[in-house]
């Protein structure tokens, strides 16, 4: 096996909210280029893990390393600048701004003009704004949203809003992309298109991806490894085939009815 860089690693990741332990002793890792899924029943703490990884919450205990560097307790916008991007389970676009502006805001991470340049319209302002504009358009073309660049985000159909969320995350030029139920509420065809898109951008941008997803067939088909979370703790970890057979997973997450779904 070739040695790949360890992109993300957590050790004993724990958070309490008052008396409730939402996430308990979670150890997980991602190597460069992997696509790993995090699954678990509703309320298992999947999104809380995302919020810990992206700095929205500060862990009560444990550590998070990104390319070997401790990042727990770092502000979310700094983590984005380091190369961790995310999408949200309930879409959180900038609703009253255009599709283009949604992406341009994310490109802001890579701008190098100050507000002084903007106020006086110095040459650097035009250079940087035009670079951002061109790159944003290129990205919109890649995800198939060029035709609607002038639309307000809130007027887009649901599937396109999901795509825009991904485009916006990509605009920050991440090394690690966290996708929180990107296919939620999509019909099978839209889901298929979305997975194709994710595969494409993963290749093109050399991304490492951590995916939260409910759609079991989708998770089983795309991920290389799966972590299973229940009541805030990891109960299983392995390849899709291993996880599928794990009795604890079947009991805790899949339940009796799901056995046929997996069969």
């Amino acid at each position, binding site marked *: 096996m070739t040695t790949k860089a360890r992109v993300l690693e957590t050790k004993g990741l724990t958070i309490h909210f008052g008396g409730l332990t939402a996430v308990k002793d979670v150890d997980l890792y991602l190597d460069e280029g992997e696509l790993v899924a995090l699954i678990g029943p509703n309320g298992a703490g999947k999104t809380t893990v995302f919020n810990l990884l*992206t700095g*929205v919450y500060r862990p009560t205990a444990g550590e998070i390393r990104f390319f070997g560097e401790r990042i727990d307790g770092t*502000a*979310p*916008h700094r983590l*984005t*600048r380091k190369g961790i*991007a*995310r999408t*949200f389970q309930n879409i*959180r*676009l*900038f*609703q*009253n*701004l*255009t599709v*283009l*502006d949604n992406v*341009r*805001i*994310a*490109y*802001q*991470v890579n*701008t190098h*003009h100050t*507000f002084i340049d*903007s*106020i*006086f*319209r110095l040459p650097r*302002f*035009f250079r*940087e*704004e*035009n670079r*951002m*504009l061109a790159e944003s358009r290129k990205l919109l073309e890649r995800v198939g949203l060029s035709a609607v*660049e*002038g639309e307000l985000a809130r007027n887009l159909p649901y599937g396109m809003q999901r795509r825009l969320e991904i485009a*916006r*995350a990509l*605009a*920050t030029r991440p090394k690690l992309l966290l996708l929180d139920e990107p296919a939620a509420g999509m019909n099978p065809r839209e889901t298929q298109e979305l997975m194709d898109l994710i595969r494409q951008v993963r290749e093109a941008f050399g991304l490492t991806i951590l995916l939260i997803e409910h759609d079991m067939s989708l998770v089983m088909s795309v991920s290389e490894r799966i972590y299973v979370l229940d009541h805030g703790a990891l109960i299983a970890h392995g390849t899709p085939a291993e996880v599928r057979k794990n009795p604890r997973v079947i009991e805790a997450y899949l339940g009796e009815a799901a056995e046929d779904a997996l069969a």
Partner: protein
Amino acid sequence: MTPMTIAPDRKRLALLFIGIVALYAVVQAGLSAGWIGRFYENMLMNIGINIMLAASLHLIIGVTGQFSIGHAGFLAVGAYTSAVLTTKLDQPFFLAILAAGVVAALFGLLVGAPTLRLRGDYLAIATLGFGEIVRITLYNIDYVGGAAGMQVKHLTNWTVLYGAVVVMLVVIANLTNSAHGRAMLAVREDEVAAEAMGVPTTYYKVLAFAVGAFFAGIAGAMYAHQFYIIQPVAFSFLKSFEILVFVVLGGLGSLSGAVLAATLLSVVNIYLQAFPETRMILYSLVLILVMLYRPQGLMGNRELGDLFRRRAKEA
């Protein structure tokens, strides 16, 4: 629609420049030739000061979405700073104007840094508290005359005020139409998502607060040197509220809306002074009617330029 590349549109800039100079020249000629009397001169000054207040608060509320209702506090800081400099310390007016802006901006930083962690209603209450603290502190400083107020030289004139308004509008418009302005809009739209997209939200909130306070401070210098006397009572919550009304009535998020509303309401207010008993009732009625028929404000979130562009496209 966003154009293919962003470049200065020389024709439009030239037209704008000619318009700005022409408006200045016509009014200046009117003032020196005496066609524009004292009454209208005062009205123009009032409009100018209110435009500065409206546009500076627009940056904080309309663009960045931080609901601040202590704007009169920054106005007061600017007014008293400049008044002390010109009347007590005999400094030139120009220096006093700059100092008013800088000191008000420092107050903006001072208030902004701790309170901008608050959101919505809580921020509104904190900024309201700030405005009241400024006013009550001024009541108790004998050096600036306490409740009786302070005599100030009349130094504000059309040239200075017009220059200040133009500079401010250019700065705010240029700031808004840039990556930095878009970052502020992102803060308004969704703070959590903005952070996740790498926008340092606290930085942009404080920036908006400081720039807004700077221009409110300059408006304060204009105000102090226009009305001969300044008293703490003029900078009460009611003043903050009046400025807030300009911004909301103009349409949250529209700079030209804020300017338009400040102009219209200043004029309405002056003409209503002929009816002292019913003035506030009529003023409120105007507000109620506008809000009933245009709940999104006069301009919605569009700008004056958008209207021309649309017309050009249809033609």
